[in-house]
């Protein structure tokens, strides 16, 4: 089999998360692609929780509908998850529990608790479950043994031995009971990968990109960015500060950016709403800064623990007035790592806020990441005034907001002699002095907006799109953010059904690569945006930016759960049938 899905359900506090983590980590180490996610809510009756791990020989970045092996620790877990089991799927339980399952369900019952007790530590129960799962999924134990030795080595030989014994006994008993009903996962490519969440990747990517100050206010699903930054930034001479609210968090980054430090704040929808006024200030004063928005279900408190991609309008147009903002839209943990590092270069080259549109699916769920190439990361601090030239200029002569062809004017940093100026949110002239002269106003507006018409770094364009798939496709899928995983998978599936498919991932939402998208739409049989929102915000943006020609359709999902490949396939097929656009 190319892929298996494992799910574990039970009560919170039973160690399910660490069990899932061990299972996912080992599969990643064995050279499989892994996508691991959890079902959680702000309130869960009875404290039920479940974790799903998708293990595959090909790239997987989306949830799966069907489960092959279901580990259930109580009846509630059975009731909530049994419907996910594939025909021939296996239910694994502890022998002390006889689950009430539909007739014909294959139940494998392993005395997990008893074995753990015999081995002298109740926590070994989870290792018995993992060993048994490995047997049922056709994954050899070697990788698990190596992991145990690695992870528990410090705790002494006895602990290592106990864990290994637990694994082995679970494996043997499950294997024997299941007989030829076990699954057989194909071998992975053996390539070791990292297993990270988008939030991990964001925080570490920021540090790699030279960020030295993170100021934020906790909010789901962004909090881990602050936490991971707080853990690692001090090792790089930087700091993470938990602020009193989002207004102050973004204000700190502005102060630091003015002083020449790469600074970032991270938040989610409600926080982005609060930051709007100061995002305007950063646009107007032309101070570099980076903001990460991990989108979640809105509006208002909406569904704080559920996935959505519905902040696009706020990110691009939110706030009052008109000012430059760059909005990046990575879709994988790997992309968000490099994008976050790059965001600081963009901010310092274009002197404006750079917003990274993340989302709950990308932020929280673990996925395998190809080895990070730190050599790819460059630090490019953008146009800075030359202190020697400033000295010669004399006082009050520096034009911080000089009219230039690109619109970007070199900035001075506090401490540079004769570089003093006024950075004000009020309209100002080339020196920074407040001015409401109509001619000046127009020139300043034009210059600020001109800056980000085209993005380049080091003379090379920053690609706004990532395109893969067939030329002259029957179907074009246009997507952004974590939905891209489901799109790539859906494209494969549609291809297997005989269609030609192309996938365009919008990597820069502002400035939007409209001309490139227009060409793709023109060449395609039918074009769809794929979005986790109710109002097709990406499609709206495309049209608003002048995309025309054939109608844009949209595959939408806004029930709080992530897009799945089969949902895209179904909606695309339905549209094609209805409209008769069949290849």
């Amino acid at each position, binding site marked *: 089999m190319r892929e298996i899905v494992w799910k574990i359900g039970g009560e919170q506090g039973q160690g399910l998360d660490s069990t899932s983590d061990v299972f996912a980590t080992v599969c*990643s*180490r064995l050279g499989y692609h892994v996508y691991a996610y959890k079902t959680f809510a702000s309130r869960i009756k009875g404290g039920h929780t479940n974790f799903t791990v998708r293990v595959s020989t090909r790239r997987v970045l989306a949830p799966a509908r069907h489960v092959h092996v279901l580990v259930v620790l109580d009846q509630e877990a059975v009731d909530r998850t049994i419907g996910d089991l594939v025909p021939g799927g296996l239910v694994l339980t502890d022998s002390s529990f006889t689950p009430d399952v539909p007739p014909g369900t294959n139940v494998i019952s392993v005395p997990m608790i008893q074995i753990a007790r015999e081995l002298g530590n109740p926590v070994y129960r989870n290792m018995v479950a993992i060993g048994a799962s490995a047997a049922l999924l056709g994954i050899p134990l070697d990788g698990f043994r190596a992991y145990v030795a690695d992870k528990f080595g410090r705790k002494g030989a006895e602990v290592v031995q106990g864990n290994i014994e637990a694994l082995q006994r679970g494996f043997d008993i499950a294997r024997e009971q299941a007989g030829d009903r076990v699954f057989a996962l194909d071998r992975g490519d053996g390539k*070791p990968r*990292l*297993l990270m969440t988008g939030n*991990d990747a964001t925080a*570490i990517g920021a*540090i*790699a990109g*030279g960020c*030295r*100050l993170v*100021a934020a206010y906790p909010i789901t699903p962004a909090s881990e960015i602050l936490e991971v930054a707080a853990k690692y930034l*001090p090792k*790089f*001479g*930087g*700091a993470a*500060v938990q*602020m*009193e609210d989002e*207004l*102050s*968090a973004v*204000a*700190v*980054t*502005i*102060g*630091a950016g*003015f*002083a*020449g*430090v790469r*600074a970032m704040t991270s938040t989610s929808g409600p926080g982005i709403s609060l930051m709007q*006024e*100061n995002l*305007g*200030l950063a646009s107007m*004063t032309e101070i570099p800064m980076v903001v990460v928005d991990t989108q979640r279900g809105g509006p208002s408190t909406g569904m704080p623990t559920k996935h959505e991609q519905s902040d696009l309008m706020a990110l691009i147009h939110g706030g009052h007035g008109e000012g430059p903002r760059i909005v990046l839209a990575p879709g994988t943990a790997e992309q968000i790592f490099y994008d976050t590092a790059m965001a600081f270069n963009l901010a310092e080259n274009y002197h404006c806020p750079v917003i990274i549109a993340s989302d709950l699916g990308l932020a929280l769920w673990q996925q395998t*990441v190809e080895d*990070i190439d*730190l050599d790819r*990361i460059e*630090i490019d*601090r953008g146009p800075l005034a030359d202190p020697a030239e400033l000295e010669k200029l004399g*006082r*009050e002569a520096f034009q911080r907001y000089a009219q230039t062809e690109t619109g970007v004017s070199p900035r001075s940093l*506090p*401490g540079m*002699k*004769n570089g*003093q*100026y*006024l*950075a*004000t*949110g009020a309209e100002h002239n080339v020196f*920074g*002095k407040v001015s409401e002269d109509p001619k000046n106003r127009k020139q300043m507006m034009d210059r600020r907006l001109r800056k980000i018409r085209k993005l380049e770094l080091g003379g090379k364009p920053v690609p706004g799109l990532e395109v893969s798939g067939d030329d002259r496709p029957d179907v074009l899928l246009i997507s952004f953010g974590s939905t891209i995983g489901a799109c790539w998978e859906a494209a494969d599936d549609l291809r297997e059904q005989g269609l030609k498919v192309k996938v365009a991932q919008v990597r820069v939402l502002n400035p939007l690569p409209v001309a490139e998208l227009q060409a793709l739409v023109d060449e395609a049989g039918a074009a769809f945006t794929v979005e986790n929102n109710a109002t097709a915000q990406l499609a709206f943006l495309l049209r608003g930016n002048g995309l025309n020609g054939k109608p844009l359709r949209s595959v939408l999902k806004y029930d709080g759960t992530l897009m799945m490949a089969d949902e895209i396939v179904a909606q695309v097929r339905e549209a094609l049938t209805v409209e008769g656009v069949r290849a």
Partner: protein
Amino acid sequence: MATVTVTLQDYKTSEKAWWCPGCGDFGVLAALQKALVELEIEPHNVAVVAGIGCSGKIGNYINAYNIHVTHGRTMPVALGLKLANRDLTVIAAGGDGDGYAIGMSHFLHAMRRNPDITYIVMDNRIYGLTKGQTSPTSQTGFETKSTPDGNLERPVQPIQLALAAGATYVAQGFSSNQKQLVRLIKGAIQHKGFALVNTFSPCVTFNKVNTYDWFKEHLVDLDEVPDYDPHDRVAAMRFVAEHDGLVTGLIYQEPESIPFEEKLPGLGRRPLAAQDLRPDKEKLQQILAQFR
């Protein structure tokens, strides 16, 4: 090292102040400039963060690195500046509306953190720029366009608030008592930690009650109170409360104040702004290895 001579001229800009003739803010501007000159701090090492209001225009008239921010947000912007570059002298300045209404929570949290920032509030007990509404420091019963039947609320007591919030330098000045104000601002800048200088700065256009004469009549000058001890927080609270907050001078200073930026793990002596940003690949690889 060559000695620097800093003159008042260095701190002037070509811009003419837009305040109404007689505005108290002229006095605050002059005192701040004089304090910086007397401390021989060069303009390029000063960052002024100004709020929104008539008072917030102060940064327009000081030749320094100025940032004129959104209404009420001077405190966090100043914090960002100080964290970024602890070699800078960071001054925040704004009005009573800016600091004690919209910016109240940042003010309280700044005092909890104690970064090395000097905060000058130009307190005219009214909103000037928006043309005369009630401010958080307006007295109960005060009649303005927004409270035609008189202010129903009790005024914020900035000094008592600062003492209670743990501020490590608390002073109050009067814009027409230049000598004292200069001294208070100098002390604030030299203080290692958060320093509040609430300054009565009369609004001659909209506040017809709290005029220069009114302040002169009501203010108690600590310089003339012989046994006042500015190192006793509780005594300071009592004294200020007994005089309804109408006290000028150094009210309280904590001798052993350690600024926030010195306590933060990771921040070394060298300013963040002077750091080499090329990633330390080895350290990064070690972190990434934890995800394997």
